[in-house]
């Protein structure tokens, strides 16, 4: 349980309104009063995730302490034997007090009541009365606390109210209503303290004090939406939700982010909406508290990226190829037709599935393929591996990145976490704030590099502090030889109380990544960290269910095997093989029949015989296993899209049509089968996954001051799978780095959070933040290619070519060009490859 009271916590006694309580020493008074006494001391500026600032003055209390003799330090007693209490003459703010032994507070006296009433009155003097049209109305801390503590009448002349800009865009995503703002600075502090990127600030002073953004583009961060949640009034609203619905019309449905390995817990706020044919529709995505996973934060991609679920491009009908055309069909006849095709393959059946497929989908798919006599289950994309090692030396059950701090160490290697798993980046940054030693190793500058621990003892590096900038593509060698070539850093890591290694695949082939992950596992085993709580290996596997793929038997190595030995029939589930990989068409042409289950009519779907529409996470229930092996359940939120059904159901019915047993009737029933047949899932049921517990800090209960109806976790905190197997330190063979010939260059694909993938591009409001395609070169390489910063260039590679902008800076290492994936609709290299870059002189159109 996430609680402020640990085994070794020293407890002190404080007295609240005449009653004694035992609380952890050093805790914040507001948090402790709430946790132990259920006493909701009202706050606006205070937030338990951030340092107190004492600005709003709402949390006024009477504060006292046991009187002690100045000379002797002895407690002074009244005649009746009770200790004397010395009270401060003025009211004090509770949020700026840390609890200590003998602290006395009163929260219900007339003086306290008057103080709080005054603060409410002051806050409302210039606050507009537009609650009836305010997004926050109904879940607004200012509204709630006015009802609880205000006197109900305004003494301010209406004409004297201050009028300010009500629709100020801080960026494309977040709007500021300067009249509603009560200058609590929660948004500024969030960016500064939690994200570590202070793009917001105060400007001016006095009553003119106002929020500004000082980044260009405005409010440039991947976490901006969180400020609208913690805003205690309706000053900050998202471009996605503002004026979209009223909070009390919304039904909160617990769900899980479909985007990345973090598995952020979210709440889908839905209502029956005319814009969606009267069906339940997602109006907004809110964070749901899970202190083990995402605390109370989510990335902007998770918050705003839900539009693909209702995209006009969604596949809503079954498509069956007749010659060069497709025709629609019904499920019953399709199940039969697909089953017939599969049976005719005589066991030459394989499947490739992507990270959007749920545990249930994957289990049913594996059952189908093996039932048909096939044995090849490939994981998409074949860029990242090591899930098997995460299952063995990952973070053990009961771990929490939120507990990393002083004395602990973190190594992030070959990953741009901000772009790949923003929530891990956020949580590792806050761990660094708490004192963890953060080492960042990459072949180029990433935003995380700037957060690497400052360490004057580490000298002679390209970049300051505990950061390693290695030669492009050499991550595996760096990890394998860390103890030799980065002795001081390696020692810090090995000696840490807890050690977390995040091993990405940037700049690496699948074999290279295998070598890196094994080296990282070796390090953890050798240093004695493997198997220790809060220590272990993380891999930013693509998609929400990378670990689920592993547990259900899918591996990226098998995907390579499938490509090398194509089967007669290939089943593709949520894997955009042709859009992702320009080389895939070569081997796919040798597959007789492709059966695709997906969300869109993507390139692989257009090459398929059968195209089956399946439901996204929003329209069905299911479960994902996140990168920390936490199995988490999500619930049906949105109305169905056309004829799409859940993939487990489609696959199960195909199996039934192929006489492989009866199709299951629910996702829960599939989970029962999984628990029975997949060892790691033993004991896991939907009921287990739905278990909740009280979490600290308490922001989701009936309190009136943290706002938002969505924080409260009623959907379950999930269940972390125990480590299995005993990995041993193994000798690693680092594959040779790719070598470019004359006139060639190594292209290193990287991941961008905002890209032009089928799933993300329907989120129109973020489109302006998707980078135009570019290739990033070191000045040395650029010079050899006669390219200058800003030039147009044509990049040629195996399977295609694309025109992009050249970016030239020494933020990337010599010898390779960074070439982000999915910034164009054309397929660009999925894994490092050798290609050419030529300057384009004629007026060129870059292909966005």
């Amino acid at each position, binding site marked *: 349980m996430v609680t402020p009271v640990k085994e070794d916590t020293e407890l002190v006694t404080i007295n609240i309104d005449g009653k004694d309580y035992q609380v952890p020493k050093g805790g914040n008074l507001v948090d402790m009063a709430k946790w132990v006494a259920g006493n909701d001391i009202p706050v606006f500026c205070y937030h338990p995730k951030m340092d107190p600032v004492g600005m709003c003055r709402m949390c006024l209390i009477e504060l006292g302490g046991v009187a002690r003799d100045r000379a002797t330090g002895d407690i002074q007693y009244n005649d009746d034997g009770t200790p004397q209490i010395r009270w401060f003459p003025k009211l004090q703010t509770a949020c700026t007090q840390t609890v200590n032994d003998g602290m006395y507070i009163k929260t219900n006296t007339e003086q306290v009541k008057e103080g709080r009433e005054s603060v409410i009155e002051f806050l409302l003097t210039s606050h507009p009365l537009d609650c009836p049209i305010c997004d926050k109305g109904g879940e607004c801390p200012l509204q709630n606390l006015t009802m609880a503590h205000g006197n109900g009448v305004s003494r301010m002349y209406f004409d004297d109210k201050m009028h300010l800009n009500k629709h100020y865009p801080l960026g494309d995503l977040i709007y500021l209503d300067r009249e509603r703002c*009560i200058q609590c600075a929660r948004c500024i502090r969030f960016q500064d303290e939690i994200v570590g990127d202070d793009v917001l600030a105060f400007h001016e002073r006095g009553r003119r004090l106002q929020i500004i953004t000082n980044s260009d583009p405005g409010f440039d961060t991947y976490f901006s939406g969180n400020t609208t949640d913690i805003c205690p009034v309706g000053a900050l609203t998202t471009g996605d939700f503002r004026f979209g619905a009223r909070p009390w019309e919304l039904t909160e449905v617990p769900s899980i982010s479909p985007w990345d390995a973090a598995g952020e817990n979210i709440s889908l706020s839905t209502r029956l909406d005319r814009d969606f044919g009267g069906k339940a529709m997602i109006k907004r995505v809110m964070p749901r508290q899970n202190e083990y996973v995402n605390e109370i934060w989510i990335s902007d991609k998770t918050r705003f990226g839900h539009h693909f679920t209702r995209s006009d491009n969604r596949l809503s009908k079954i498509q069956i190829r007749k010659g060069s055309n497709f025709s629609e069909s019904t499920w019953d006849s399709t199940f039969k037709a697909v089953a017939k095709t599969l049976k005719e393959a005589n066991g030459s059946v394989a499947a490739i599935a992507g990270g959007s497929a749920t545990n249930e989908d994957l289990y049913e798919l594996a059952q189908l393929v093996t039932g048909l006599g096939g044995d090849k289950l490939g994981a998409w994309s074949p860029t990242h591996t090591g899930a098997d090692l995460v299952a063995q030396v990952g973070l053990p059950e009961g771990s929490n990145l939120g507990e990393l701090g002083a004395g602990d160490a973190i190594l992030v290697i070959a990953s741009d976490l901000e772009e790949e798993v923003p929530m891990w980046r956020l949580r590792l940054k806050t761990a660094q704030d708490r004192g963890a030693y953060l080492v960042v190793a990459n072949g180029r500058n990433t935003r995380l590099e700037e957060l690497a621990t400052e360490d004057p003892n580490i000298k002679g590096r390209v970049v300051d502090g505990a950061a390693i900038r290695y030669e492009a593509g050499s991550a595996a060698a760096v990890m394998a030889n860390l103890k030799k070539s980065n002795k001081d850093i390696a020692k810090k890591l090995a000696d840490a109380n807890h050690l977390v290694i995040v091993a990405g695949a940037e700049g690496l082939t699948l074999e290279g990544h295998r070598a890196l992950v094994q080296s990282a596992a070796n390090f953890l085993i050798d240093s004695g960290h493997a198997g220790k709580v809060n220590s272990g290996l993380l891999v930013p596997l693509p998609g929400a269910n990378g670990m689920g793929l592993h547990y259900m038997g899918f591996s990226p190595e098998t995907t390579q095997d499938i490509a090398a030995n194509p089967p007669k029939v290939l089943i593709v589930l949520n894997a955009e093989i042709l859009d992702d990989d320009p080389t895939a068409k070569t081997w796919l042409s040798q597959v007789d029949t492709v059966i695709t289950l997906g969300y869109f009519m993507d390139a692989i779907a257009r090459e398929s015989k059968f195209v089956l529409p399946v439901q996204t996470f929003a329209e069905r229930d299911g479960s994902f296993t996140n990168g920390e092996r936490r199995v988490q359940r999500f619930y049906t939120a949105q109305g169905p899209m056309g004829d799409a059904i859940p993939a487990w159901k489609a696959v199960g019915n195909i199996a039934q049509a192929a006489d492989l047993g009866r199709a299951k009737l629910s996702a829960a029933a599939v989970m029962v089968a999984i628990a029975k047949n997949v060892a790691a899932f033993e004991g896991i049921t939907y009921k287990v996954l739905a278990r909740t517990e009280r979490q600290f800090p308490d922001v989701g209960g009936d309190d009136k001051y943290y706002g938002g109806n969505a924080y409260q976790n009623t959907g379950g905190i999930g269940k972390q799978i125990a480590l299995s197997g005993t990995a041993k330190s193994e000798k690693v063979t680092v594959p040779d780095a790719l070598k470019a010939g004359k006139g060639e260059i190594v292209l290193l694909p990287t991941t961008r959070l905002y890209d032009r993938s089928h799933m993300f591009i329907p989120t129109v409001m973020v489109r302006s933040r998707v980078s135009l395609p570019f290739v990033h070169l070191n000045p040395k390489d650029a010079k050899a290619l006669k390219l200058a910063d800003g030039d147009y260039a044509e990049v040629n590679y195996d399977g295609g070519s694309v025109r992009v902008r050249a970016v030239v800076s020494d933020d990337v290492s010599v010898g390779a060009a960074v070439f982000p994936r999915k910034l164009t609709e054309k397929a660009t290299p999925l894994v490092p490859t050798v290609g050419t870059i030529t300057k384009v002189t004629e007026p060129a159109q870059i292909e966005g």
Partner: protein
Amino acid sequence: MADSKHIVLRHLDIGKPIIKLKDYEKRAGGYDGFKKAVKMEKSAVIDEVKASGLRGRGGAGFPAGVKWSFIPQNEPIKYVTVNADESETGTFKDRLIMEQNPHQLIEGALTCAYAIGAKAVYIYLRGEFWDVAHMLDERIEEARKAGYIGENILGSGFSCEVYTHLGAGAYICGEESALLNSLEGKLGQPRVRPPFPAQKGGGLYGEATVVNNVETLANVPWIMVNGADEYKKIGTEQSAGTKLYCVSGNIQKPGVYELPFDTTFRELLETVCGGPPEGRSFKALLPSGGSGPIVPLTDEVLDTRMSYEDCAAIDTIIGSASLIVMDDSVNIAWVASKVIKFFAHESCGKCTPCREGTYWLDKVLDRIMAGQATAKDIERIDDVAKNMAGITLCALGDFAANPIIHTIKHFKEDFLAMAEGKELAQAGD
């Protein structure tokens, strides 16, 4: 004493400013106090200042030696910050010290730095004092060349640098924690205390820091030379030494006067300053600029000594001793309006009661000044001001409440006359 010798304004005894180091050394016993101090134990210097009873001259009157003694001796980095933000309405004494006798401040600051073991002294001046800062830089350079600043000062092993820094024009930066924020390049807003500046974590860049007013430090050289006992002989029991009184308003001879704390208001205002303008009589006094409670200039008040304890007894404060005098031509509601405009303009906006309260009070006072208000509005602003007082983050909220609460308490009839349009607003504003 006014006609004999001065402690702070020593140049007045000589008859001309003491700018150059050689003048300071020759004619004002320059750096003798500092020379004496560096030969003493650090704790002995602090004890001497403590024993002198020297109180902070910035307004709060906190004993300087006690403040110095709060600095943890074992911390490796400590600072001295000189508060030369002089922004209180009607205060113009620190400027005089820096312009006419700059080395005495530098000497006092260095003595403090030695006593607490500080690495550096920062003199934080209000932005308008750019010429003063420029001049101080020249004096600092002069002192460095003479070996009073830099490495191993006077062979004592003590090393210290002195820097000047200009503010950007905010009253609140005279508040010590806002000053430190501003000095660090942050927004000039007060910090939550504790930790106090003298504690680790609360001072400049998080290090223990003494923040003292210019005038406070300018007293230190005299104390070091003449001893605490001599200093204690001047003034009253709880207010030792002399004070620089800034007199302005309706008075014959405005200016800065250095007098012992046991001087009465009558002695200063009538004897020294020559009383009110011809044909007028005294009405009211703001003894501590806009931030202190106003008092009617009755005989009782006039016969009060201008010390911390005596002023408390008549329900006001001496603060930084910026005496703004008003004669019978002045409507006090107009004074309140002017002062509130100042605070509404200068509130930093960090905490709710001050940010919203000053804005609100200003708006209602505008109505009163326009003759568009009722007695109820006067009750309202009185109540609003009382609600503000005591619950703000820093003292500015209390300062801003004072001019309303106390002007209404003593001069309610002025407000009524103004509110009901019986008296037109004073010319000009």
